[in-house]
């Protein structure tokens, strides 16, 4: 359903992504790993429209989305979170949840939207914090809020950038559960993580990036045994 083809991104003279191609199937749970600076977050930024590709195509459900502004991509059903959580600090948790509803006000009554927000917060078990300012939440809670916020848009594809980093181990387990549950509901996931254990556990398929190119693509077990991956991680 999502296809990345020959993607190139330059920053000044530096090529961050070099002819990257991969596809993501319907309801797939794809993990992307790679050493620091290998282009994982850049890839997500390109797909979500925060960056414009220098070259290449991104197609979603058969339509080009590269070059579209990120709000348009979000409205088409691709949601994402950030490596460093980006919640609206000076708004309450509930207000944060209501921001996506501002974007597409015709999608329903405010009352219904509020109900939906509370249901999602309940699912993520942070509904007791609904009136708290977002900046007062712990790092993990902010990650949940960020996740909840994109669920408001009912995205078909959810891209998570380091969902487990800096999260309390107990909360990490919960996040695993939520991802599995949402995946079971039919959503497609792209997850970036340094937490290899978690990602090997969760993913159905893994892509390994190094220096902006794909060096390996396959089921977790195959990837684990691939020499190139070991080399990329351990260096020379």
């Amino acid at each position, binding site marked *: 359903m999502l296809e990345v083809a020959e993607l190139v991104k330059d920053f000044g003279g530096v090529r961050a992504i070099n002819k990257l191609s991969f596809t993501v199937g319907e309801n797939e749970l794809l993990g992307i790993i790679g050493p620091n600076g290998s282009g994982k977050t850049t890839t997500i930024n390109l797909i979500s429209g925060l960056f414009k590709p220098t070259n290449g195509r991104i197609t979603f459900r058969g339509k080009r989305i590269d070059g579209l*502004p990120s709000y348009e991509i979000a409205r088409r059903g691709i949601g994402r979170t950030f490596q460093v959580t980006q919640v609206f600090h000076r708004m309450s948790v509930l207000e944060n949840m209501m921001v996506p509803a501002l974007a597409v006000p015709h999608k329903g009554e405010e009352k219904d939207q509020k109900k939906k927000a509370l249901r999602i917060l309940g699912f993520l078990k942070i509904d007791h914090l609904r009136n708290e300012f977002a900046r007062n939440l712990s790092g993990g809670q902010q990650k949940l809020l960020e996740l909840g916020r994109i669920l408001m848009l009912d995205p078909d594809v959810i891209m998570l950038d380091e969902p487990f980093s800096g999260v309390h181990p107990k909360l990490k387990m919960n996040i695993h559960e939520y991802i599995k549950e949402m995946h079971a509901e039919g959503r497609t996931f792209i997850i970036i993580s340094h937490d290899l254990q978690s990602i090997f556990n969760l993913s159905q398929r893994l892509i390994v990036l190094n220096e902006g190119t794909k060096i390996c693509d396959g089921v977790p077990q195959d990837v684990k045994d691939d020499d190139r991956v070991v080399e990329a991680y351990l260096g020379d």
Partner: protein
Amino acid sequence: MDFFVAQALNGLIIGLLYALIAIGLSLIFSVLKLVNFAHGECCMMGAFVSYYFSTLFGINPLIAVFLSMVVVFLLGVAMQYFFLRPLYTGAVERKDEYAILITFGLGIFFQNLAMSLFGPWTKKSQDFLSGVTSIGFLTVDNNRLVVSFVAIAIVLALLLIINKTFVGKALRAVSQDRDAAAIVGINSHRINMLAFGVGVALAGGAGALIGPIFLISPMMGILPGIKSFVIIVLGGMGSIKGAIIGSLLLGEIESLGSIYLLDPTRGLAYKNAFGVLLLAIVLLVKPTGLFGERHVRME
């Protein structure tokens, strides 16, 4: 005592006028993360537009104020669309420098445009309400009273819009995190345009309001532009509350300061320095300004 009250009242009225201009600048900064150095000129444009609405077409001067706000809003939308949008589409590399240069340039352009369109002469807009009101020892020009109430009304309306409406919440969301707002589907270009339009419209409204009080000329915007910049740094960049409180503070300190501080016979010569002095002290104690969040930049 009477004398003090009269001075404080004057400071309050001046502060309210500052607030209108400064809130606009702060709103623009909070959403677009740039300082609009053409803000004072937008104030001037508003003053001239309302002047001509009321003198050429005989429109009631108060209605002319609102019409001028609409005109300046459209001007702001155009400025945003043609000159500032490239900052947010990734077309510009050195964003801070570009923003400073382009807004400065537009400001100078407006000054010269006004000079050739309207001439260099000082003009006075029509009175909102002529005459003066005397309450006991206080004598206040009626225009100032009207303007104060209108300024309060505009500020309250703006606060209501920002805090209660869809649009206001979207403005706050973009101001707090542009990317996060974008990835949940908020069209930040439209919000930019709106914030810039509303921001300069407030300045235009302020210009239209001060027309009958402090007179209008093509260069009238320079000082308000500088002062509103001082105010938003003082109040905390991007904070609306900070802009309001900073404005009132500056109004009072200018009014009282030039009388009670220093040698009163020289006080007016330093009037414009008081704000900067106050700013320096506040920044030494609180580097982010009174209500400032940590310093934000365009990314």
